[in-house]
């Protein structure tokens, strides 16, 4: 699946969260959308799955515009892990993961088998599957959210700051696991982060954004070796950009 944004604009109130972006996400690659808070990274993800509508420009999937009807079918082909996981508190970990299977009336054996595969892939402890979200650790919440996004074996996986809420040890562990998962699946992955280290570690292509525009894109080594402007240099040098501590981000 090839996802493309052409001259896409999205405004919230007076300001533009996304201000005329052109981006193509190639199949099978992991792309990191990197940048300070409020630069429009999360908005790009929401635009891609039709959770928000653009005010200008065009978004296309495999060369065709986003469907106006039956956007659900597209969403099932794109796994989306929202910030902080977005697990449903009324469902156990297993029920969260298999919610779509329940909706699609899968055979319970099939759902159980898929759950087992995903738990193995994400190294999620089997005994924690019956727990409710408020009984899980931060790292476990993210693993469940990733399992849930992968249930229908989507072609694309979107992750919004999957590591930002975790403490350092857990963060490193999950980051390494994510790299393994991305390698194993070989899917198109787009990960939003404000952490330079994460982008460098996980992504084939880094897209550095600032104030709704793309500043520079390419492999991390290219950005580091030949920065397009002083902002790139400054952002890469500070490790996680000039805007920390991070404010509660809803539309970044």
């Amino acid at each position, binding site marked *: 699946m090839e996802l493309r944004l052409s001259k896409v604009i999205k405004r919230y109130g007076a300001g533009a969260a996304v201000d005329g972006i052109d981006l193509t996400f190639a199949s099978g690659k992991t792309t990191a959308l990197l940048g300070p808070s409020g630069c429009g990274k999360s908005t790009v993800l929401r635009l891609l*799955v039709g*959770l928000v509508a653009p005010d200008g420009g065009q978004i296309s999937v495999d060369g065709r515009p986003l469907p106006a009807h039956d956007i659900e079918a597209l969403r099932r082909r794109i796994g*989306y892990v*929202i910030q902080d996981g*977005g697990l449903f508190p*009324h469902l156990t970990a297993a029920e969260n993961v298999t*919610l779509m299977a329940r*909706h699609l009336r899968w055979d319970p054996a099939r759902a159980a088998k898929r759950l087992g595969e995903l738990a193995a892939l994400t190294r999620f402890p089997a005994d924690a599957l019956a727990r409710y979200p*408020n*009984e899980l650790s931060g790292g476990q919440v993210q693993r469940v959210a990733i399992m849930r996004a992968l249930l229908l074996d989507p072609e694309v996986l979107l992750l919004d700051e999957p590591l930002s809420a975790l403490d350092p040890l857990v963060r490193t562990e999950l980051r390494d696991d994510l790299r393994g998962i991305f390698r194993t699946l070989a899917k198109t992955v787009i990960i939003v982060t404000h952490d330079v280290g994460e982008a460098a570690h996980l992504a084939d292509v880094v897209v550095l954004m600032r104030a709704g525009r793309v500043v520079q894109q390419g492999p991390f080594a290219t950005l580091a070796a030949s920065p397009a402007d002083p902002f790139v240099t400054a952002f890469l040098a500070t490790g996680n950009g000039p805007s920390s501590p991070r404010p509660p981000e809803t539309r970044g």
Partner: protein
Amino acid sequence: MTAARAGALALLVAAGACRGKNDPGRAVVVASKGFTEGVILGQMVVELAASTPANVEYKAQLGGTEVVFHALEAGAVDVYPEYTGTLTQEILRKEVAGRSLEEVLADRGLRRSRGLGFDNSYALAMKEARAAALGIDKISDLVAHPELRLVFSNEVMSRADGWPGLHARYALPQEARGMDHDLAYRALASDGVDVMDVYTTDAEIRAYGLRVLKDDRQFFTRYDAILVYRADLEARRPDVVASFKRLEGRIDNATMIGLNARAKLDHVSEGAVARDFLTAQIGFAGGAGPSQRVLASIAGRAAEHGALVGLSLFAAIAVAVPLGIVAARRPRIGRVVVGAAGLLQTVPSLALLVLLIPLLGIGSPPAIAALFLYGLLPIVRNTHAGLVGIPESLRLSARALGLPPRARLRLVELPLAMPLIVAGIKTSAVIAVGTATVGALVGAGGFGQPILTGIRLDDFGLILQGAVPAAVMAIGLEALLGAVERRVVPRGLRARGNA
């Protein structure tokens, strides 16, 4: 073909309706208002009507003139005891200007009997000792004593021919408060108040040793007791009408005070009082008529009460949850829906019941409808609040998964809102158990019945027979719904300690 069939159907329905109206086999419904004299007179009518081959039903102690008169007009009641003054001064006040009461009643398909022989008008009364000490003998003497505390029954407080007119005619300096007639006697006896309104046939005048103040400026109208009945009853059951007309001119004031005293002070049942009178004074030997058993079993009342609460609550849930969902989806509609449900809550229960009588008659239908309407608000509001209170991130999650709107509602939104929805249902249920006691005012039975009778007869035990089971039912229902809550509210939404 279809039109012809529809026409035939309409004719059938019309014929059925006509037959229903004039069918001599249909029960004759006798009613009375909620005070002892009315109940006794109603009981006499029941006994006399039951001496004919007619089926007779008695809806005793309905909640006030408005309720009974509207039920009579709507055809839910066929006959009840009334007073001329009540009709001319309040219910038909505008219509009777320059016309006779008979004409005005005829316009509404109603008729009246001749007077039963006594006049139960209003008067003011004080304790004999206190009146003597202050030298008060007539109403105008009250002007010199502004410190006296006056109470009037709520009807009298608001009626033009009650306190407002009296206040103006005598230029009384006192403020008056509204108080239930039977409670007022107790307040007067314990010196909690000084002056109250009485009816000139009240048993308590003798029992409490009261001085009735002279109406020296002829303010109060005559209240001659009559029977009001539907004109179509004369066509349907002339024998019943002839039978109850035997009461005309047979009861004088002293007799009525005596009858009231037997029922109220000697605790003889109204049925026995009525039968003894009929036997002694009219030579009536109807024997065992269908006497109204005021003391139905607690189980029977619980069944009535439970049916009122259960049916209304079920209907309220079925309507209010979808309304709450619509309200949450469409904020503009939401404001209107929640506002309208709130407005309903402010309508006093008796007023609501009176409004419903022309549509639903008397008995349990108007009571269930009223409880249903009162039950809507807590459920609508909580459903709405529960849905709009779902965190944005969870809505986003559900959409991002590719769940269509209906599945999001069923699998995510309603379960998340469930704790608040159940809380709303619990609130509605407890309100319904309490409010259902007013169902007795329109003849719906339930625990309100013994409460009304208990207040009327000054019988605290009887009041408890209604109040205690009602409280127990409220507590039991709360516990039952708590058990339901544990089943329907997902464990993940409860306090962490329970998990």
